[in-house]
């Protein structure tokens, strides 16, 4: 397979970040998404770890795609994913022990994030490493983006701060920002995560269904009838079986 062209690369990245977004469209990996997005530092840590895991597993699985027989591909994928995630967990324990302590069980649980097995099965096992890498970057960045948006919003509303704990957890005390002492507790609690994620999904739908400004009508083109159905949402998300 030749290297992906520029447009194909852009398409792969766009799918992960927007039209096939793991968090907002495929609704995969919700457990860590909702549980760890309480503060922006946790969200950043888990999002980066998931991005790394996706890149590692997608590339590894693409590299061994000719070695995996159809009957045993799922166990083989799970083994590769477990190895990659465990490596990331070990590295984080060694380099950022405080962050490792805070993320706790959600680091090893990245193994069970269906988004990862889903990408392995749906894409990485069928394409060359370059495309698998682009897909992983897109999906991982999309997931990281949703995590960060949730984390920033929940921390801001729930605790009135941003990046609290960046000093001890990441070694970046300069990021910490205390804006207010007001606390709106529900945002920091699990129901707040559900509500905010729901609002984000709704906002995305609204954006996609917003009434478009009538395109400048060229003389030759027929005028679109007013009653034409509004732009439907782009093709329904393909929910990976995972």
């Amino acid at each position, binding site marked *: 397979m030749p290297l992906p062209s520029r447009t194909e690369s852009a398409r792969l990245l766009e799918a992960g970040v927007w039209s096939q977004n793991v968090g907002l469209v495929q609704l995969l990996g919700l457990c860590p998404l909702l549980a760890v997005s309480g503060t922006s530092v946790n969200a950043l840590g888990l999002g980066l770890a998931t991005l790394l895991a996706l890149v590692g597993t997608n590339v590894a699985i693409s590299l061994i795609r000719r070695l995996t*027989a*159809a009957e045993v591909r799922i166990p083989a994928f799970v083994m590769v994913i477990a190895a990659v995630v465990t490596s990331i967990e070990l590295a984080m324990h060694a380099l950022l022990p405080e962050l490792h*302590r805070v993320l706790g069980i959600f680091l090893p649980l990245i193994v069970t994030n269906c988004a990862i097995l889903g990408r392995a099965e749906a894409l990485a096992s069928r394409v060359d490493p370059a495309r698998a890498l682009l897909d992983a970057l897109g999906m991982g960045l999309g997931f990281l983006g949703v995590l960060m948006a949730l984390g920033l919003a929940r921390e801001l509303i729930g605790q009135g701060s941003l990046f609290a704990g960046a000093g001890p957890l990441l070694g970046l005390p300069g990021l910490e920002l205390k804006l207010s002492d007001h606390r709106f*507790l529900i945002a920091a609690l699990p129901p707040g995560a559900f509500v905010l994620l729901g609002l984000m999904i709704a906002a995305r739908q609204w954006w996609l269904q917003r009434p478009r400004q009538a395109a400048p009508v060229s003389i030759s083109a027929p005028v679109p009838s007013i009653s034409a159905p509004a732009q439907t949402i782009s093709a329904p998300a393909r929910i990976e079986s995972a």
Partner: protein
Amino acid sequence: MSAEPTPGAGSEPSGLRRAALLLGVCAVLSIGALAVVEWFTREPIAEARAQAERAALAVVLPLDRYDNDPIADSVWVRAPLWLGRPEPARVWRGRLAGADSELALEATAPDGYSGRIELLMGVDAQGRVLGVRVTRHAETPGLGDPIEAERSDWINRFAGRSLGDPAIEQWKVRSDGGAFDQFAGATVTPRAVVEAVARTLGFLAQHRAAIMAAPAGELLEFPDAPAESN
């Protein structure tokens, strides 16, 4: 199931054997990669663990009051009814010129608002609290989490107190008629912590000599129960 691009799989009679072989190859590759990562991270991780342990201990065990190595000179005690946990708790013993000076131990408040609250406590030879820290909990953020030293100084009010100060009946939160403040919006959490600290002090009052005398590394069993005081 859709067709796989994998060539040859399952098509020849030895398909299953081939599949098993390939799975084995994957396993070997995964294990090999993991072994390499583990080898590189083993030392930093051990160092990070020890660092975290020392940092936590330093808070409850003042460094100037012992001249031995409490991490090496530690024992395990299993006292489910005293320490609120079925599994053994670690006790770090600090000695000054060989004599009992202070010790730190793990204790559990089993009855927090959302499950167990794990504590680390330092107690001097006279039974006075040197310090208490919450090492793990799942209390409600914003309501129960002032038990964390980073969020409020509530946990520091145990320092210097002992079972006679305040009197044993007063080792309760204020809304139960005791001497310790609860915090706004949460009574269950501070109640659980106050009672766990009091129980742990009672445990040491009864068993401290045996704990200090045991050889390092030993696991001691204390199946007895605290006398019902309330």
